[in-house]
């Protein structure tokens, strides 16, 4: 069993994506033996009204709820976010959120963001936060969106101890409180491995030692990214078979309450 917690559907504003419909993503997942994937709207990253992207995803995954797990992209500074959250959770069956504070122009410490995270926590929804969408060296001439800082995320985690977080597309955790053994942060977050090294620096191994294998999740970033690099990390990782199974799917099943 493999569960990918970091996947997307729809178009992205600055690059053509392949495998970005439910049918084509499922075909890719079949080829890579990925059983389930958490998906959100790539278009909602740049839509002003992100809910339109959530509606697109809801329509796409409708007949594939056994394999595609939809998450909602919500901008807490946009009109009607509470209504959108309610619709996404109750009507669309979305189990979590994806937040894009740098793209949607707010801070993780803003009151509205804390309200959104707490509202999601009350609903039992997971809050996932991509630290970046694409490599910053590739960015379009139209935008200059910085990566989220690990310190900003640590602040949110501390401020919302009842929420549950999944951190996506990140790197460098071992040099921050998020990846240290002795930090005073609650253990209400898990880290996805798509950008972490399994060889040389071996950040995955360091995080396993510091936080435990229970806090790591497989994610690929498909279809922005090829899924194989993330899968290969697990192949070459120096870890027990049981720890690899945790990362491959068991931890995700727990975090997503599947």
């Amino acid at each position, binding site marked *: 069993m493999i569960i990918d917690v970091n996947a997307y559907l729809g178009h992205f504003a600055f690059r053509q994506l392949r495998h970005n419909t439910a049918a084509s993503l499922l075909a890719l997942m079949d080829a890579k033996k990925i059983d389930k994937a958490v998906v959100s709207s790539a278009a909602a990253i740049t839509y002003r009204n992100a809910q339109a992207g959530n509606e697109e995803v809801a329509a796409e995954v409708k007949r594939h709820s056994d394999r595609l797990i939809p998450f909602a992209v919500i901008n807490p500074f946009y009109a009607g976010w509470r209504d959108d959250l309610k619709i996404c959770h109750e009507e669309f069956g979305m189990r979590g959120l994806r937040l894009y504070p740098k793209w949607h122009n707010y801070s993780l410490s803003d009151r509205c963001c804390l309200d959104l995270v707490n509202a999601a926590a009350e609903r039992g929804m997971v809050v996932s936060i991509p630290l970046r969408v694409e490599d910053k*060296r*590739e960015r379009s001439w139209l935008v200059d969106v910085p990566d989220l800082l690990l310190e900003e995320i640590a602040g949110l985690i501390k401020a919302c101890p009842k929420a549950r977080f999944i951190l996506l597309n990140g790197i460098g955790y071992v040099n921050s409180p998020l990846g240290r053994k002795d930090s005073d942060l609650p253990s209400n977050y898990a880290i996805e491995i798509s950008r972490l090294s399994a060889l040389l620096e071996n950040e995955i191994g360091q995080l396993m030692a510091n936080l435990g294998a229970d806090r790591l999740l497989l994610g690929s970033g*498909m279809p922005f990214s*090829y899924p194989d*690099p*993330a899968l290969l990390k697990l*192949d*070459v990782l120096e870890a027990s078979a049981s720890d690899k199974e945790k990362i491959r799917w068991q931890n995700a099943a727990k975090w997503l309450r599947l």
Partner: protein
Amino acid sequence: MDSSESQQIVSRRSFLKRSAAMAVALTSTAGRVASGAEGGQSAAGTKTGPSRKTKVIDCHAHLRHRSRATWEADDRKLIEAADKLEIDQLCCSILTPRRPATADGFRECNQWVADGMRRFAGRVLGYCYVNPGYAREALEESRRCVEERGFIGVKLYNEYTCTEPVVFPIVELAIELRVPILHHAGHSHYVMEDQPRISDSGHIAELARRYPEAMLICAHVSGGGDWEWTIKALRNAPSVFLDTSGSATDEGVVEMAARVLGVDRLVFGCDTSMTASVGRIRAAELSAGDREKILGGNMEKLLRRRKS
């Protein structure tokens, strides 16, 4: 690491054994093995995939600069990573931590590369890194490294844009010696203040028009910004090769490069982003034969052009 340790690394892993597993690691469409497989055994545990005919060569690798206390262990880890990923040979350079490099600085780096070629005999191939601004020293060093030390090519970084005349004598020497030049490159849509003279694939294409007989490799398409731009700018420079390495795992880069440039112009590299770089080749929609060309066949051909 002493030489006996390096000998152990080489001898305990025969080339043939590595080769048998190699194709599977890099051609598996499943991208994984049966659960329970431990690291290092994954490739052998998979049961599908064609047998491999050619070596896998990482055209873009680096040994560690010795100003870093852990250099020896880091070099060893690189070879161990190559073992796990079933990479047969790594074409390595060492860059100075601060650039522009001085003549003493690049000579010291090349001395360490030569030492790495001895420590990891048969695994590490050497690029001679020079700063073309030191005209006489750079030419002497390049010739000495290739002719006397057995280096396989020249590595140029960002001290000068490759279309600046100061670079031309190095290119002409590489043509004479029939060795490739791996040229650092990137194209972003903003000013890279830390690399004001970085070359992009357009510059390399322009250099290739001036020297069509040069063997130019445009570095790290997956670590050099807008890869669609990079690929398109090379379309009409048929003598330029493109190195697939880099940390960005963007889907589709290899397929676009193969479609626009042709697979014969693509050479596999990691630039120390090991799983990203192997993973993208494993993922790409390619025939087994085309994958072999990219993984090593094309680079082997390039290296065979060398003046004996």
